């Protein structure tokens, strides 16, 4: 893996092929768990861990798996890894484990994990695959973090609420009350808020892309008489 490939994988994961905003994979947890920053980031990191490990373990065995059982084997590997992560969380981060609940085992069915296994890890060497899994996971985590942060901020006026569940009671004071005496805009933390928020994030990304493209072109195109149809 040379520097260019490295850059490409990182860029793909975090921006160009971002699983949350571009591939639109793994929406179920993305929408369900992003009602607070801590929940969102925790699930994002758990997914990242699983993706890194699964890509890293699928890549070395890829040539020994015959085509007809490719997917069962990948699912098996992913399921094992998820279960391991679940045990670990249950043991050492019980509060978070309760909050994330069903969504931890659901990482198995998160299409993004299998999608990376299929489209990248099954065709690339272990190191690149691990990096790809990690970066895709980080990309998802980033989207989750932004979505969770925004929803929590608008919905409750706080940030990092529930941080004690992840880091223990010592972190209780870390909760930031950004807007004191806030009425709470419940829509944001209820399920519709997730859809609206994701829609806005995707729109925002597209807008940034378009702007970058326009800048890249930036040749003085004739602007006059420009008309939109309809």
């Amino acid at each position, binding site marked *: 893996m040379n520097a260019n490939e490295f850059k490409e994988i990182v860029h793909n994961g975090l921006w160009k092929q971002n699983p949350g905003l571009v591939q639109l994979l793994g929406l179920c947890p993305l929408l369900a768990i992003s009602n607070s920053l801590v929940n969102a980031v925790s699930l994002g990191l758990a997914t990242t861990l699983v993706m890194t490990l699964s890509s890293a373990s699928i890549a070395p065995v890829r040539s020994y798996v015959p085509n007809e059982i490719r997917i069962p084997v990948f699912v098996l590997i992913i399921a094992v890894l998820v279960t391991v992560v679940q045990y670990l969380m249950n043991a050492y981060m019980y509060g978070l484990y309760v909050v994330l609940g069903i969504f931890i085992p659901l990482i198995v069915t998160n299409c993004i994990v299998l999608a990376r296994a299929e489209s990248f890890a099954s065709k690339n060497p272990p190191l690149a695959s691990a990096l790809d899994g990690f970066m895709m996971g980080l990309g998802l985590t980033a989207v989750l973090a932004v979505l969770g942060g925004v929803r929590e901020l608008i919905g409750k006026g706080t940030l990092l609420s529930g941080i004690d569940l992840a880091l223990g009671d010592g972190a209780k004071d870390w909760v930031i009350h950004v807007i004191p005496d806030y*009425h709470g805009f419940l*829509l944001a933390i*209820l399920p519709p808020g997730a859809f609206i928020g994701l829609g806005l994030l995707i729109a925002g990304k597209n807008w940034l892309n378009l702007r970058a493209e326009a800048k890249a072109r930036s040749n003085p195109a004739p602007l006059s008489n420009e008309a939109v149809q309809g």
Partner: protein
Amino acid sequence: MLSSPFITTPTSVNQIMLRVLLALIPGIALYVWYFGPAILVSITLASITALATEAVMLKLRDRPIKPFLSDHSALLTAWLLALSIPPLAPWWLVVVGTAFAIVVAKHLYGGLGSNAFNPAMIGYAVLIISFPAHMTHWLTPHALGGIELDFAQQLSYIFHGTLPAGLTLDAVTMATPLDTLKTQLHLGLSVSEIRDMPIYGRLAGHGSEMVALGFAIGGLYLLFTRIISWHLPLVYLGTLFAVAGIFHVFDPTHYVTPLFHWFSGAAMIGAFFILTDPVTSPTTAKGKIIFAAGAALLTYLIRVFGGFPDGMAFATILMNICVPLIDLYTQPKVFGKKDGLL
């Protein structure tokens, strides 16, 4: 290049919208008569917010501001939304609801003509979901003779959230007739016991029944000037009457009369002003009938069995989702063809 026809009728979108606004006035007048002028504050607030956000969105979307701003559609959204919010709601509630309706429900969906959902109802739904507590502070009609706030006190509450010393919110507000009905039924009272309570009048809630009547009068004006087609209001009210009637006949101690359903909540304004929004209702005659019947059924179900006191807004939104499908399956027959599309 100019294309035929070269002559057109003088009717334009802004005239249609203006007539609809006019038709709301009898209802609003009765509202003021029975509940005081606080509602005018909400309407003004909502109108200013709607025009301002509309202008900003048009600017952002690179659309000419003047022709779109003068089509009165934003004003109509604002009025309908203001009329579905309690008059004593804090000012920011009105602003947030209207802004959401215009920015998200209207412009993010492509602006006038492209919005899939009735913006006013989306605004209402957002408010009732997000601020359910504030959405329950309805005014008590004058006739009941309870403690009343004067206009200055109302303004002070709307803009500062302060009540005169010694008064609690509970003392000056009440739940809607529909909400009260639901709560009392929950407590095991029978319909006739509940209807004897002072907040109820001849048909439904004291005062609010007259407001509904005002909207019906405005609606009939729209119907007779052919601004709206008969399908939507008539089928809606008819279905609501039929469903409520069946339940009422079946068990009059638990289910109120169909007339009560007609004249409470948003049934009247909904039938004539909300369902009839052409953008978000079906285009075919058959489709309109299905749409209105579905909305009536859902309204009743949500009112009687659901978690919210009134179901008009959610029924409208749910039926809005079905509009493309309804339209697809109700394509009328074309001249010279035996069948429609399907």
